[in-house]
C-alpha cells in the first residue's frame, strides 16, 4: 500500500481518545463524546486514525493510562462523504487520514462517536 491510497471500506480504523480527566468520555456509557472525533486545527481538517490491519491495539493506543481505543469501519466514514487515505509516518506505518470534513457540518463527529466501539485490551 502506498501513501494516498484509498482504504478499503471493509477495513477497520482505530481512533485514540484522550481519557485523562475523562474529558472526552461519557462516564455513564463509556462512549466517547463527539469532540473526540472533531478534526484538530493542526491537522487541516482531517482526522488521524490507524489502519487496524497494520497495527495492534497495544501499539495503537500508545499509552493505556492516557488513551482509550475505539474502532469503526471505513465504510462508515465513506457513507458520510469522507475519504480514508493511507498516510504512513516514520514512526507509525498504520497512520491513516480521514479527510473531507465540512467545518459547517457539526453532525459528523457525533455520528462517528456513536458508531464507534471500544477496543478492549484486557
Amino acid at each position, binding site marked *: 500500500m502506498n501513501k494516498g491510497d484509498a482504504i478499503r471500506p471493509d477495513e477497520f480504523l482505530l481512533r*485514540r481518545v*484522550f481519557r485523562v480527566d475523562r*474529558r*472526552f468520555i*461519557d*462516564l*455513564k456509557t463509556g462512549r466517547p*463524546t*463527539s*469532540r473526540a472525533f*472533531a*478534526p*484538530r*486545527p*493542526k*491537522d487541516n481538517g482531517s482526522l*488521524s486514525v490507524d489502519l487496524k490491519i497494520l497495527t495492534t491495539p497495544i501499539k495503537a493506543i500508545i499509552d493505556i493510562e*492516557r488513551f482509550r481505543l475505539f474502532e469503526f469501519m471505513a465504510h462508515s466514514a465513506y457513507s458520510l462523504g469522507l475519504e480514508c487515505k493511507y498516510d504512513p509516518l516514520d514512526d507509525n506505518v498504520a497512520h491513516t487520514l480521514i479527510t473531507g470534513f465540512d467545518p459547517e*457540518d*457539526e*453532525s459528523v463527529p*457525533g*455520528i462517528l462517536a*456513536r458508531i464507534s466501539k471500544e477496543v478492549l485490551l484486557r
Partner: protein
Amino acid sequence: MQSLLRKKIEYQVPAYSSQTSLRFRQAEGILSLSQSNAIAVGFLNVLSSSNYHEILRVKSYASLADNWDSYGAEQVSSTAIENAVAFIKRIDQYDIQVYLTSPGPNGEVMVQLKNDAREIEFVFYPSKAKYVLFNAAGFFKQGVYADVMLDDLINWLLSNE
C-alpha cells in the same frame, strides 16, 4: 412553547414544597463548599446541584493549555466557556439537567442534553453556536443555534413521539 419556561417559574414560586425545599438544601450545600464561588450566591435559589457542578466543570476548561489532549487541541475559548455557562443557567430554568459537557479541540465547548434515545449537542464556539439532534435512528437534524430556538428544541427533546 414558551409555557415550558413559564411553568418552571410558577413551579418555583410556592414556598416549602418538597421540591423547593430540596433545592434550598442543595443550595445550602453548595454554599458551604466554597464561599469563593460567587455563582453559588448569585444563583442560590435557582441552579440545581447537578447543573451547578456542570458549570464548575465547564469553567475548569479555562485551565486547559494548548495541546491539552496531546493531539494539538487549542486552548478552550473564554467566550465559548462564558456562552456555555450562560446556556446551562438557562437550561436549568427548564428543570433539565445537563447530561454532559466536553471541551473541544477547536476551542469550543459542547453541552449535551439527553432524554432516553433523544440527545441534543449544543456546540459553543467563540463566535457561533450549533445544535445537533440525535434520536434512536441516529443523526436527525442540525443547525445554527439561537436562543429563540430553545423552547422548540426542548420540546423535541422531551417529546416521545
